[in-house]
């Protein structure tokens, strides 16, 4: 197909042709085109269907505020819905399809909604909730779900990657139009570190779309020359294709750089987009202005767009949307479009409601006239105009440009709750209250002329950077004043679109007012005005002007809705960056990981740690078989388990013992060197926080362990106590979790295995229960040995510098071979600790006290410790408080599930009669039946009682007996052996 609307001029590369398809048809455009400009060049005006009524739509703008021309870009897994054709850079091989249609774009079956518009007015969605009640779920909701919305997702994984990055500068300039470029030049020549970001792929802003000259050059040429000067300066970073999406606190800005969106597929390993976090001292917002439309009946037909868009298509892209074009304008800027189009050979007619509209020699101007309606099923064919004398005239045209004035682009000035103020001369809101460090220049500030923008940009850079000396020379440029008479909608208009993306009409705004939703925020929610992907950039002003008129208020009295980041839609992938799939979070591998993999271990994620869960043997078909074997073998002979993941904190200093006395509820001052002790930490409110051991390696040196899960938060808490509560104690903390590879060797033969490894006497006499020491192993490697036991067996934990962890586990396995040493994972570890009645996170669950855990007597009243005062509160010390107990089923074949609740066996089963709950449960291979740990009211006094254990959700109701939580070796003889 030929590019029948292509005309001379513009900044496209006519030597580079790009083939692309839209809805399966192949077209040609040029490098430098957008998808919209290329389609318009090919005579395609119809690009989409509207949200609610499925009305035919074409582009309304040539920029990122586009409400209508939203397409599916690319195909397959790379499909990107709701992509603005007006900013999509054309590339060879681009494929796009239209969206939100049933059938073809030109014959959309859901266009019937347009006939039903009486029922689909503002608030119809909320009204469907009201009556009849049963209709919502069965009738309305499915229909609305099917019909509403725009594009659809591919439902496939995005094959591309996204990066997140960080940039630092002295000055961030947002927008590379005349103001931004002049600001960048001024700042860059001073030596400041400058970032200039622009959402377009071609810097220059409106200069690319205008015919103005700067000094003696075309504006676009001046822009190109300036950009190339900036590109050669080492202190300047030019970020084109980069949208600054948010202004955050203290000079932090978010920006999305579309690195690979303009090519078919990103190069291998290259990101599609980068989400930048920019740290800057100062910011100049030079984001320009957005032209607003005028509302009249059927103002949404393809071919009707803003006048400045027509100008962009003609001047920048070399596209005359139609050879017969009408301009409907209330300001002098609309006439500029007419002049430009006429010069390009387009037949132009101007309709200006102002009686004193400027006259033109070359084309007809209808002063005091208004467009009252349009015709054309899939695109504009005729406009109906009401002339000054009240007669009507039908004008044949395929394009109609509307110009209702320009809104300074204040969006980013309002991200920190700033509100713009009304400017009567411009009939628009201008920035007022700015984020700290930001200044505004050019059209964004309300300086609408090119000369004003250039001077304003230079001045803004000069003052932002507090430069001394004179301003640079400002090039000569046009300096036309703004001449506008506010005009928002044509009297009597009803099906006149205010928000084209969300199908909000003048009538809807009136209905909202009539039904009492008059505040601007209510208007937005009730009608959905401004809630589309474009956030109403071209729509909001019209909506609130109409509301102001209806409410008898001024526009500033009505005010604007909040502006929030992001400025334009951002792909979720950009926010996710590399953190997806396997890389969602980093993995932590234990020192024995490689060896465990060789053993065929099954791993489980514990926080970020990958821990061996069990070590299946070839003949084992269920996890229980492996776990039972590991437990039995450990209790019978010896087992080994990697316990490196426990948090370890090195506590040193003359006052280290005093410090531990404060953070643990039990005492540590008298712990002798060479001994370890179990410690329980409370929160200040008396609830248990964490537990572990503290081993006294020297008078002034303890090694403290925390649970794996709480390693970070306990360390933070310890630093809080050290710095905020006892700032002058001589104590130093540092985490050493990963510095040491630590293995638990447990079972009756544990000592015999380790005797072959350690270089000193570890007999019971020389190294008794809870002993600890700095030792050497294997003939001289520095190591630490602790005689502590989680399993309840005779056990040691042995630690070596992490680099030797792999060698040590292999050595332990060799040394233990004669005792059939068995590696065990976290499941067997869990079974053995339940058999022994040791608490973990299931029991220290953020609601339990030391007393609940059966450790009430540990809370020393002879010293101060965190949580001790409030642990003595009456409410935490009632006679019928929960106590930790053991549970076994009466029928040994039955399981006792965790989470089930205990009830009196002949009492009612309901929440009011709840007696307690199971925290941990497992099958005990040693006992041959399931066992569990539970919290039970007055548990100590109920040993031997038969109770019902119920879980209504899983339909479980079993008889259980309450017993001691210590199922194995209650006297602790094994661990002292």
């Amino acid at each position, binding site marked *: 197909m030929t590019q029948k609307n292509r005309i001379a001029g513009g900044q496209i590369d006519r030597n580079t042709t790009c083939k692309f398809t839209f809805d399966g048809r192949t077209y040609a455009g040029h490098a430098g085109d957008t998808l919209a400009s290329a389609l318009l060049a090919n005579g395609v005006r119809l690009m989409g269907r509207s949200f609610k009524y499925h009305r035919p739509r074409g582009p309304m703008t040539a920029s990122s505020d586009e409400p209508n021309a939203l397409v599916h870009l690319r195909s397959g897994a790379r499909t990107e819905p709701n992509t603005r054709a007006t900013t999509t850079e054309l590339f060879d091989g681009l494929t796009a399809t239209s969206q939100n249609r049933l059938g073809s774009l030109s014959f959309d079956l859901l266009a019937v909604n347009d006939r039903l518009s009486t029922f689909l007015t503002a608030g119809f969605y909320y009204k469907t909730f009201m009556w009849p009640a049963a209709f919502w779920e069965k009738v309305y909701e499915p229909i609305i779900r099917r019909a509403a919305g725009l594009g659809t997702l591919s439902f496939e994984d995005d094959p591309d*990657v996204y*990066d*997140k*990055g*960080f*940039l*630092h500068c002295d000055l961030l300039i947002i927008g590379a139009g005349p103001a931004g470029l002049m600001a960048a030049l001024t700042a860059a020549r001073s030596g400041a570190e400058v970032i200039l970001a622009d959402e377009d792929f071609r810097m220059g802003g409106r200069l690319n779309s205008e015919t103005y000259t700067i000094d003696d050059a075309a504006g676009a040429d001046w822009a190109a020359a300036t950009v190339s000067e900036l590109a050669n300066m080492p202190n300047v970073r030019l970020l084109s294709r980069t949208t600054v999406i948010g202004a955050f606190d203290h000079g932090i800005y978010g920006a999305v750089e579309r690195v690979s969106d303009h090519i078919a597929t990103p190069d*291998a*390993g*290259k*990101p599609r987009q*980068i989400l930048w976090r920019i*740290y800057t001292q100062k910011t100049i917002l030079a984001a320009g202005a957005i032209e607003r439309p005028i509302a009249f009946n059927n103002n949404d037909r393809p071919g009707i767009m803003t006048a400045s868009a027509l100008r962009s298509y003609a001047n920048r892209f070399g596209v005359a949307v139609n050879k017969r074009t009408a301009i409907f304008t209330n300001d002098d800027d609309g006439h500029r479009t007419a002049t430009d189009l006429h010069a390009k050979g387009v037949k132009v007619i101007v309709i200006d409601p102002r009686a004193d509209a400027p006259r033109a020699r070359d084309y007809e101007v209808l002063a005091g006239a208004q467009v009252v309606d349009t015709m054309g099923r899939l695109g504009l064919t005729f406009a109906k105009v009401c002339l000054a004398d009240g007669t009507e005239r039908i004008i044949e045209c395929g394009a109609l440009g509307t110009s209702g004035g320009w809104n300074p682009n204040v969006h980013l000035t309002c991200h920190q709750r700033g509100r713009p103020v009304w400017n009567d001369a411009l009939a628009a809101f201008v920035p007022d209250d700015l984020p700290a460090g930001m200044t505004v220049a050019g059209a964004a500030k309300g300086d609408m002329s090119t000369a004003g923008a250039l001077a304003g940009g230079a001045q803004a850079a000069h003052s932002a950077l507090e430069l001394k000396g004179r301003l640079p020379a400002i090039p000569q440029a046009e300096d036309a004043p703004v001449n506008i008479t506010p005009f928002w909608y044509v009297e009597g208009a009803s099906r006149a679109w205010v928000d084209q993306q969300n199908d909000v009409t003048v009538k809807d705004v009136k209905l909202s007012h009539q039904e009492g939703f008059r505040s601007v925020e209510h208007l937005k929610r009730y009608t959905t005005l401004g809630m589309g992907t474009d956030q109403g950039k071209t729509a909001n002003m019209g909506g609130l002007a109409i509301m102001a008129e209806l409410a008898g208020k001024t526009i500033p009295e009505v005010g604007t809705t909040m502006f929030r980041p992001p400025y334009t839609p951002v792909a979720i992938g950009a926010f996710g960056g*590399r*953190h997806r799939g396997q*890389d969602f*979070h*980093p*993995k*932590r*591998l*234990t020192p024995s990981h*490689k060896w465990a993999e060789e053993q065929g271990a099954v791993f489980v994620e514990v926080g*970020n740690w990958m821990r061996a869960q069990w070590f299946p043997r070839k003949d084992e078909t269920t996890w229980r078989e492996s776990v039972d074997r590991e437990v039995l073998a450990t209790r019978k002979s010896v087992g080994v388990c990697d316990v*490196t993941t426990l948090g370890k904190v*090195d506590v*040193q*200093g*003359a006052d280290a013992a005093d410090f531990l006395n404060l953070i643990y509820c039990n005492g540590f001052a008298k712990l002798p060197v060479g001994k370890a002790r179990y410690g329980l930490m409370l929160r200040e409110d008396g609830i248990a926080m964490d537990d572990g051991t503290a081993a006294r390696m020297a008078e*002034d*040196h303890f090694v403290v362990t925390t649970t794996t899960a709480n390693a970070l938060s306990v360390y933070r808490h310890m630093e809080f106590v050290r710095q905020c509560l006892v700032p*002058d*104690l*001589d104590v*130093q903390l*540092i*985490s*050493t*979790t*990963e*510095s*040491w*590879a630590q293995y638990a060797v447990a079972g009756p033969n544990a000592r015999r295995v380790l005797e072959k490894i350690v270089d000193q006497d570890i007999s019971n006499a020389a190294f008794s229960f809870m002993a600890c020491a700095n030792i*050497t*192993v*294997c*003939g*001289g*490697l*520095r190591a630490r040995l602790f005689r502590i036991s989680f399993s309840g067996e005779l056990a040691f934990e042995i630690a*070596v*510098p*992490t*680099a*030797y*962890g*792999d*060698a*040590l586990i292999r*050595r332990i396995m060799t040394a233990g071979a004669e005792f059939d040493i068995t590696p065990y994972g976290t499941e067997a570890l869990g079974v053995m600790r339940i058999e022994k009645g040791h608490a973990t996170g299931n029991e220290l669950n953020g609601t339990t006290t030391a007393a609940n855990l059966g450790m009430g007597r540990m809370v020393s009243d002879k010293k101060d410790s965190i949580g001790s005062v409030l642990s003595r509160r009456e409410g935490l010390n009632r006679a019928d408080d929960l106590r930790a107990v053991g549970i076994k089923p009466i029928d040994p074949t039955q399981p006792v599930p965790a989470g089930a609740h205990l009830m009196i066996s002949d009492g009612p089963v309901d929440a009011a009669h709840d007696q307690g709950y199971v925290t941990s449960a497992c099958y005990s291979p040693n006992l041959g039946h399931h066992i569990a740990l539970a919290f039970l009211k007055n548990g100590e006094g109920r040993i031997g009682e038969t109770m019902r254990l119920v879980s209504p959700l899983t339909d479980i109701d079993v008889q259980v007996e309450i017993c001691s939580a210590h199922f194995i070796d209650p006297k602790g003889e094994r661990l002292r052996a």
Partner: protein
Amino acid sequence: MHDLIPIPALGVATQTIGTITIAENAGVALASVAARRGRADICADVLTSILGAVPDVGKAVLHDPEAGFWMAAGQWMIGAPMDTHEDLADQLKAKLGDAASVTEQSGGWVVFDITGAAMPDMCEILCNAPIRRMAAGDVQRTMIHQLGCFVIRRAADDHIRILGPRASAGSLHHALITAATAVA
């Protein structure tokens, strides 16, 4: 002498992607030093005798054979060649005595040396350290791929050293490789 053989955190070969070379450096012994209360002067004297100077806030002293950098007020990380200083913590403790708390850190960290012209570009998509503003000897603790790391700007203009948590050496290396590929 013992007969256990240490293994590097990751044990990966040096890789060059575009202009960037990423090398695991398993030859660094590390120990942290924290001044005891009221003993800062003695601690500073000893550190000066070892390093030539006490590393200032946010700085490293790039010195041979021992080097050091600032971690926190009154706390420093000291590094030295593993071949000669495997017992670095003991060596330091012997010199510092009660003036400081010394903790062995060799096993806690993986060390990567990154060199090449595109190194600053790579850093920009790894962490918020203002790499282009950092001078030789500047050190910043920062997050890379959710991991707390130290970034040390070395003497050569295109060289940084990254210390990251050893257990996550694989994840960190993966992040370095993907970032290098993205900017290559």
